[in-house]
Structures are given as C-alpha cells and as structure tokens.
C-alpha cells in the first residue's frame, strides 16, 4: 500500500486514507461497523456472503465494500434503510436453511452467525419451509462436521488452500446443495484444524472437544504454544482445573500466528491433564529398587545430600546438568544459575540437537519476524522442512509466494512440499547443505558445490541470480543440517547480499519451543554436548541433574549410560526412557500450570501464562531448582514469583535488557530480543573448515526422490503426543473408520495397538 493519502467521505465525514486501502477495512477502522462473513483479510477475496454492502455515489447498485479499493473523492454511505434491509435480507437467507438450535451447537456463544443475526438480522422469522438436511459426520479424528450449519463463506477451503497448500477440503455440489467436504468424506491432510478455527458457524468443529462445555464456561488464558520454535499464541480454554481446548480465535487471542495453529498446537494439549502425569516426588533408595513416593521435603533433602556427596568425592565437574529446550526461560535461567554459581560444574548443556551458538556469534543481520516472512519478497531456505517442523513458518513462506509473489530459493536434499512454491529448487544430495552455503558465500566454490551436491554446474549461480532479480529484504532460513562452521558463514551472508535498501534477515529453524531461550539463558555456553555427557556417564560424570529428558536420538547407542551413574535426578511430566533410570523423580508442572516466557525463532520473548493450578504435587521447574538451591545453602530470593526471575534475566542477558512482564503482556505487539549484530568479519578460518568438510563429501550418491507424506514429522509420536489418542490414529495412517457418523476414536478402540500394528 502506498503512503499517498486520498480523501474519502463516509457517512458525511471526510477522512484521509492511504491510496489503495480496502473500503471495508477503512470503514471499520473509522468506527463504522460493517458486517461480513466471507471477508478475511489474509485470504483471497471471495465476495460471496453479500453482507458488507454499502452505497457508493455514482455506482448503480449497492457495492460489496470488501472488494472496493478506495479512490480519491469516493462518497460512501454505510448506513441507510436500503442497506439495512439488504443486510437483514442476507442474514435471513443465511438462516433459512440453518438449524436454529444454537443451544445444542458447540459454537453457540462464539458463533459469528449468531452475533450477526443479533446485530443485523430481522426480528421476524419468515422462513417456514422445510430445511435442507445433511447428517452430522466426522471428517477425521480431529474434525467434526455439521454440514447443515454451513453458510458457504469458504474460509475453510481458502485457508486449506492458501495457508496450508493442501487443498484437502473443498466445496462439492452446486447451488443450494453445495457442501464443504472431501472425496469420499475423509480428510487426508495435516489436520491443522485451521478450517475449524476460521469457521464462523458450527459447521466445522473440534472433534476432540465435542459436547464438552459451552464456550462461555471456559476460562481463556492467552499463552504460548509449547511444541515447536514458531511460538504461536493461543488461548487455552480451561474449566474445573482441566484444559479442554486450545484455540487461536481472534476473539480471544491475536498473536503472530493470527488464527493459525498446527495439529500439535491445536490438538496436542490433552497431555496436560493426562492420567499418566507423575504425581508426587519419588525416591529410589537403592539401585535396582523401586521408586517410592516421598514428600517434597524428603526428596529435596535427599537430592541435596547426594549431590553434595558426589561433588565432595569426585569434584564439581563430576556433576552434570542438563536442561530441556522445552523449559521456560525462567527455568533455564535458574538452572544455569544453579549450575554455574552453586554446583560450579563445566558439564552442562541442553537436550537440543541443534546448537545455534556459532550462528549467534557471527550474526550479521537482524532476525526476521513471521510478519517479515509473510511480506518478504525473497526467501532462501537451506535444509529443514518448515511445513512439518515449524508449520507457521511454512505457512508464511507459502503465503509470501502465493499471495505476495515472493521468490523462494529452496536448497534441500528432500523434495519437500514447499518445492511447490519454489522458484529455484536445488535438489541436493543428502548432507551437502554445507556445500551450497559455502558457495553462496564464496563464488569460487560454485563448481565444487555443484559437484558435491549433485546439481548442475550453474545451479548456485542461478540461485544467486534469482536472489539478485528479486526485490526487498532477503530472508535466510536454515535447518539443523548445517554444521556449526557453515552456520557461521550463513550468519555472515549480509556481507554478500545486503545492499542499500535491502537487508538480509535471518530465521533459523530449531526444533523446540524454547531452543532460543536455552541458548540465551546460557545453557549452551559450555563446550559439552548431550552426547558427550552421556559418553562420560559413569566415568568422569557420576551424578546428573536432568530437567526434562534426553531425546531418543541422544540415547541411541548410549542405552545403558544412565544406569551407570551414581545418582540421577530427573524433573519430568511423564515417565520416559530417562526417568526409568532416575534415583529421584520430581513431578514438574506443564507450561499450562505456570507463568514464564518462551523465546521463539523470531527472537520474540512471549509470555506463558498459568491456565490451571499445578496438577497433583507438581511444581514449576524453576521453583523446584530454587528450593534445591536453598537446601544447598543458596537463597535465590525469588519468593515464588516468576516475574522476579524474569527481572533477573533482563539484567543478566543483554538481549533482554529492559524487558519486564508488563511490557510483554500484549501478544499483538511482541517484543524482540536485541541480539548483538556483528559487522562483516573475516571468515577465512570458518571457510577453510567448511571447505575441508565439503571436499571430504563423496562425489556421487543417491538423492531422495520422494516427497515425504503430509504428517511425516507432525504425526510422529513423542512423549506428549503419545498421550493423545487421536495422534495414534494419525500416526497409523489416519484410517477411515467404518462409519463417519461416530468419532473414529470410539470405533478404533485399542488405539495403542493400532499404532503398534502399523
């Protein structure tokens, strides 16, 4: 939109508005209410509901304000008898075939049709004919469907198409018999449920929440998702100490993701109240013995004594500390403080398999926000698969290309789904990402890279050309495939591509909700990695304090390592491979039961808010560690206040300086950490390292030719999704049950065995 201002007159008042502004937005912005159903600012125009009618002088008929671009001197009327009659008429039409049994509809109370009818509809019900009937059904384990309630605004088909690129749900039939659905009525997609979110009526519904509560009985808590590093804002709806659903409806929350969530964010929450949560502290008094419930005092005392004893006997460095990148910044900070100031060990790390240390050391430009990505004109993506691992980023890339005409340069060893949007796709051999990174920095490496990556001689040049040919900021993203040295080079790409008016922005793609925070809180400062700690377990490391659990990929090849320790303490929600060897098990509270912050892959520091009281005897991780510290003789002095912890963080971590909880309270205006940007640096050492690495790559080898199916990563069963029956159905290939009239969950009863047999 240009900055030039033009004059429009609305209801007799003059306004200056940017040239090219959309009339409906302008009217609403100026305080003139305009009803609409199909208009959705982040989707292609539809203009089908005909609710947003206005009168524009010199135009013959009423006009849909959603399709009108303001022109200079335009004279608009938004309220008149004629317009009100039309709006009443449209509402009446929409209600004609719509069941008027709002009390039994899950959407009742937050239904846009209901609200529009109150605000704009007539009083009289003139439709006395028989309504068209369609049976209720399930479209998938996640999506329930009541076709009768549909007003055909097609927001659902548009989000599926434009946001997700899946085109899984479409309109079939014609005229009054149009229904939203799929071929054979089964929804084969990533199950993001965004169609549910944008549905203004009770047509598409959360199948996991059917008939549970009325929306107004839910307490809404705005918080940050605890799955991937995108950090979507969501509203947890809770009642009676139980989290019932998670939504991103703009009436409750309005964060970086708008109304977008992925399958995990939307449907992954049932782990919170799951029966398998660890309920009390437990102590294994004897190796090989049983874990026996204990009081917090006993447990804390026991841990303090044993850690003291090990440190005494084997030295401080014999105690290892490991924190999960899922914990809050507060927990990670307290853990770091505990580690460095109290225990004094050099053996600490996080259970993230993707360290961003060298990237941040060489950071040559700012971090891109998700908004920057949505409106970017050039995107370079090296490795990764955001559609599966950082779904919001995937959506932003797709929309940048589809709705914004951006150029996507894709470098990947797998023909991931985003290649559909790519202008240039370098389909490289596995593990040759470094080669391309090297060549992007250093033209001289073009042919070496081409040879190792198995792409055309001029492929890197073509990618470079595509970047040069496009305009605007360049957003560079990369996945965990890049080695540390290659990350450093990428971080310095601004040297090569930033010119006047053209910034290079970065968007690393780590895997966890607080991978960034784990880095920022210093938990990645030590030179040790999780695998190294496991290697040393039982040798130089005798005791281990783990907040969270090791990843399966860490434990692979180190199966017995944990049981070789003299003493293992684990804070967890659930029993895992790691807890199996624990000598003390401490019940941690989930993100829904505590206050705190997560830092997402934009560097945005976002609030986590307590939605329900901590379950059973669990406590937030940082509280547990503070109590342990106190027992060991050091009072951190937070007085059970997460905001006090955060204040300390803001004082200690320069990128967070000046931040306070009150400043972070508005999820619509998130605050980005101020990471230090280093100027162009001499990269010869890093280049040499990477070149050596690249030269060592084979000159031939097979490429991955198959596009991974939707859900390859999203539907993988992890500790948390394991607790959600529906995920097991998805992981088993989302089989279509015998009838779609009943939830598949009740038809395929032995969910676990379904998972095991497939």
């Amino acid at each position: 939109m240009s900055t030039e201002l033009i004059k429009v007159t609305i209801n007799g008042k003059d306004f200056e508005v940017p040239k090219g502004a959309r009339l409906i937005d302008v009217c609403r912005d100026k305080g003139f209410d305009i009803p609409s159903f199909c208009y959705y600012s982040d989707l292609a125009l539809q203009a089908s509901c005909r609710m947003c009618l206005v009168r524009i002088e010199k135009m013959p008929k009423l006009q849909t304000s959603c399709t009108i671009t303001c022109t200079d001197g335009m004279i608009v009327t938004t309220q008149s008898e004629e317009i009100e009659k039309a709006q009443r008429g449209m509402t009446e039409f929409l209600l004609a075939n719509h069941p008027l049994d709002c009390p039994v509809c899950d959407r009742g109370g937050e239904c846009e049709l209901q609200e529009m009818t109150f605000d704009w509809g007539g009083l009289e019900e003139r439709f006395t004919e028989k309504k068209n009937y369609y049976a209720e059904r399930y479209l998938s384990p996640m999506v329930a469907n009541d076709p009768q309630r549909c007003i055909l605004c097609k927001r659902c088909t548009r989000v599926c198409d434009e946001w997700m690129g899946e085109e899984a749900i479409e309109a079939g039939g014609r005229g009054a018999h149009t229904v939203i659905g799929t071929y054979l009525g089964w929804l084969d997609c990533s199950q993001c449920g965004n169609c549910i979110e944008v549905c203004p009526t009770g047509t598409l519904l959360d199948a996991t929440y059917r008939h549970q509560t009325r929306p107004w009985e839910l307490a809404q808590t705005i918080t940050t998702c605890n799955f991937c590093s995108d950090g979507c804002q969501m509203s947890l709806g809770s009642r009676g100490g139980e989290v019932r659903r998670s939504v991103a409806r703009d009436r409750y929350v309005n964060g970086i993701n708008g109304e977008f969530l992925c399958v995990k964010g939307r449907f992954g929450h049932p782990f919170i109240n799951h029966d398998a949560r660890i309920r009390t502290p437990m102590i294994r008094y004897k190796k090989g013995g049983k874990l026996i419930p204990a009081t917090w005092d006993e447990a804390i005392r026991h841990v303090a004594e044993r850690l003291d004893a090990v440190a005494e006997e084997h030295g401080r460095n014999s105690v290892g500390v490991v924190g999960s990148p899922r914990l809050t910044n507060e927990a990670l900070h307290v853990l770091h403080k505990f580690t460095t100031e109290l225990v004094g060990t050099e053996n600490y790390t996080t259970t993230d398999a993707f360290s961003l240390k060298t990237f941040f050391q060489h950071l040559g430009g700012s971090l891109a926000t998700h908004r920057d990505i949505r409106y970017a004109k050039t995107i370079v993506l090296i490795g990764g698969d955001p559609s599966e691992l950082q779904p919001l980023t995937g959506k932003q890339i797709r929309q940048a290309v589809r709705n914004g005409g951006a150029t996507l340069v894709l470098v990947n060893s797998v023909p991931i789904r985003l290649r559909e949007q790519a202008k240039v796709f370098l389909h490289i051999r596995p593990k040759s990402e470094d080669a391309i990174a090297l060549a992007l920095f250093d033209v001289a490496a073009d042919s070496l890279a081409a040879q190792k990556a198995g792409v055309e001689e001029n492929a890197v040049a073509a990618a470079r050309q595509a970047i040069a040919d496009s305009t605007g900021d360049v957003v560079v993203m990369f996945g965990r495939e890049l080695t540390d040295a290659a990350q450093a080079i990428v971080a310095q790409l601004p040297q090569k591509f930033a010119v006047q008016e053209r910034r290079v922005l970065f968007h690393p793609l780590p895997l966890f909700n607080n991978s960034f925070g784990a880095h920022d809180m210093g938990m990645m400062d030590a030179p040790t990695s999780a695998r190294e700690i496991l290697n040393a377990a039982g040798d130089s490391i005798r005791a281990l304090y783990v907040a969270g659990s090791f990843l399966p990929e860490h434990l692979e090849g180190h199966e017995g390592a944990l049981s070789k320790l003299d003493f293992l303490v684990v804070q967890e929600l659930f029993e895992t491979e790691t807890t199996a060897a624990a000598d003390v098990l401490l019940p941690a509270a989930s993100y829904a039961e505590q206050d705190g912050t997560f830092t997402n892959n934009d560097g945005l520091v976002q609030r986590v808010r307590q939605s329900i009281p901590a379950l059973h005897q669990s406590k937030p991780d940082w509280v547990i560690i503070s109590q342990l510290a106190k027992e060991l003789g050091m009072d951190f002095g937070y007085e059970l206040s997460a905001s006090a912890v955060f204040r300390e963080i803001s004082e200690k971590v320069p990128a967070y300086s000046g931040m306070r909880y009150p400043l972070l309270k508005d999820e619509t205006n998130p605050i980005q950490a101020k990471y230090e940007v280093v100027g162009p640096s001499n990269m010869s050492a890093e280049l040499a390292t990477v070149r050596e690495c690249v030269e060592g790559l084979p000159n031939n080898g097979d490429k991955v030719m198959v596009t991974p199916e939707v859900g390859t990563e999203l539907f993988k069963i992890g500790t948390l999704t394991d607790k959600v029956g529906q995920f097991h159905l998805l992981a088993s290939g989302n089989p279509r049950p015998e009838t779609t009239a009943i939830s598949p969950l009740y038809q395929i009863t032995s969910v676990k065995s379904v998972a095991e047999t497939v």
Partner: protein
Amino acid sequence: MHIKAIGCEPLQLRRVHLERSRTLDVYRRNGGYEAIKKVLDGMSPDDVINEVKKSSLRGRGGAGFPTGMKWSFVPKDSPKPKYVVCNADESEPGTFKDRYLMERDPHMLIEGMLIAGYALNSKTGYIYTRGEYKYLIDIMDVALEEARAAGLVGNNILGTNFSCEIHTHTGAGAYICGEETALLSSLEGLRGHPRMKPPFPAVSGLYAAPTVVNNVETLTAVPDIIKMGGEAYQKLGTEKSGGTKLWSVSGHVNSPGVYELPMGYDDMEKFIMVDCGGMLNGKKLKAVIPGGSSVYIMRADQIIGKDVRMDYEGLVAAGSSVGSGGFIVMDETVDIFESTKNLTEFYKHESCGWCTPCREGTDWLVKVFKRIENGGGRIEDAQLMLDLCDNIEGKSFCPLGDAASWPIQSAIKRFPEDFKKRLLATD
C-alpha cells in the same frame, strides 16, 4: 422447425439450407473465408475493430454490450498471450439459435473467430460448447480439421504471418458457465463460479491473460461486417442496434423456429401472428417472454396493437428486453404461476451456489412455490416472494440472481390473477 429470414435478406442464415452447408467447400463457394482474406490483405487490427465499432454490433449473448468497444479494451501492450473465447454454452431457456448456426454453418464461426483473433493479436481461440451439444463439438472438430488442412487455421494462415489455432472445449451441464467469467473458470478446469469484475476478462481473463468472450452469433456476424463494411451492416438495423438478429421462437405458435429479423423489426404482434404462423390451435395469446427466460414476461395486451419494435430500445420501452432472443410464446391455457415456478426451479437448479442471495433465495422461492402449489398458499406469499426477489436483485454476485428474480417480479405484477387464486384458495 423453421429457419428463415423475415424482413431482410438472410445474412446469418444465408447458407443454412444449402446441401452440405457445413462443408468448407460449400462455405467457400458461397462467400466464405473472403472476409478473413480481406482482413489479411491489408487491414490493420485497428481497422477491423473500427469496422466492428461502426457496425453497432451488440453482443448477442444476452447482455448486448457493444462488441467493438469490448474488443478495444484489450490492452495492446500486454506481454501475455491473448485469447478469443467463443461462448457456445447456449443454455438460456428458450434459446437455440447458436445450435443451428454451428450445426449448419460451422465455418462461419471459425472465420469470425479468426478475424477476432487477428484484431486482438490472439493466437489461440477456444469454443466453449455446452456438454449436451456434443454432436456440435464433433461438427466443429471436423470443420476445424478441414480448415486446418486448407491452411485457414493454424500457422501462417493463407500464407501470411498470421497464426491462430482454434480448439473446441466441452462444458458439462451448468447454465452458469454461460456467464463469461464462470465460463473462464470452467475452461481453466475449476468449478464454474463467476469471478469478480474488475478485473474484466479483457484485461485478466483466461489464465489471467487478456481475453475476449463473445457469443456465437456475435462472432458469426463479423465476417459479414468486414465484407459489407460496418456502416452497411449497421444500416440493416437501427442506429443503436445494428444489423440483424436471430430469434429462437418456441411455445404455442404454429411455426416455432429460428428467425432472422432486421434489428428494429417493426411489429412484434405481426411477428407472432403472421411470421411464426400464428397461435397454435387458434388459441388466444396470453404471454410472451421475448428474450430467454431471464427477462420480464409480457402480457398479451403489452403486445397486441402496440407496435412493439423488436430491438434493444424497443423492447425495453415495451417493458422487457432482447436478452438472448429466446422468444417463448404462451397461450391462454398456460398458468403463469406454474410457468414461473418452472423457471424458478430452473434458476435454483442452475445457481452456482457461490453467493448467499441467489443460492438461498432461489431455494427458498422454490419451496414457497411448491407449498402454494400443494394448496398451502397464504395471502402474504405474493408480498414475501416480491420481497425475496428484491433481496436477491442487485445484491447477487453475478447477474444470475437478477435473472432469477425478474421473471417472478414481472409475473406477480403482470399476472396477479394467476397467483391470487392460489393464495386465496386456503383462506
């Protein structure tokens, strides 16, 4: 079935009665492909457009938009390919003229498309034919093959550097695909929903490229316009409605058929009573829908003794419009309530379902009609139907909504007795 010209020399119908009229040979021996030759022999694209402008040719598909003007909207400097699309979807109830033009004189259409292609610098044309007219697609395919073999379609037409390929395309049963933007959606392989205008197809049409959509009869008029000159063609008709027009006549007349009349033919009553052989079985005229189902229905007394002039302006003055020229004649036995119900069912069946008023409005109206038919009529139903029509008219996404409401509005107003007796029945 009668196919003939009245009040003028047959122009569009010149060859329809010739033996083997659909062959290239017969077409050529009767003046065919002379116009494209004339065009390629020295007319510029702008010359062609100017002739068409001078002819006052107005689109014969129903909207009556001046064809020359439509052609001049196509941006000359656009780097995109340009498309000429022939609208042969002919699904308007009561309309069947395009069918006979294509069946009997397919080369005339090809020639018209070539000239349009030349004028618009387009290298590709599509003939979108309704799926039910499969036999016409076969006829067009044969004709195109003949023309291709004779160097009249394809590369370097008639040895010049003008190239234009023409393809047939099939619809599959959807009236809405006659609406030009829905037709383009359908041609792109999508559901046949209309699209937002602007952008108009002339700027962003098929595959988002500049596109001109014209009715069969519009395009088949073009060769004659070129041959006789725009002015001469215009003079066949009136100042604002140039040339001749085909009328598809059906219903209760002795000689239904396709009639070519000069625009401004002076008497509608004579047309029915004499030219079309008069009323079937000598019954009395009750009503006429003159322009395909999507126009106002006329009472006999709006026609008899009224000297209704048959052109765009004349019909509007008489209380209806030319539309597609589908002339449906109804005698005294017809119950206008029933005929209106019949048409409303048509519109309900054909509503694409995109927009609220048309989708829900037609569904509702059909339900009201059915209820009344089954004896459940209420005195307020007439008002209800008029109000529903008012809520559709002018509010729908495309003109189908308007088209659905006009027959009802005019029927209730002009034939209140046929409605009233049903509404009172239950009182």
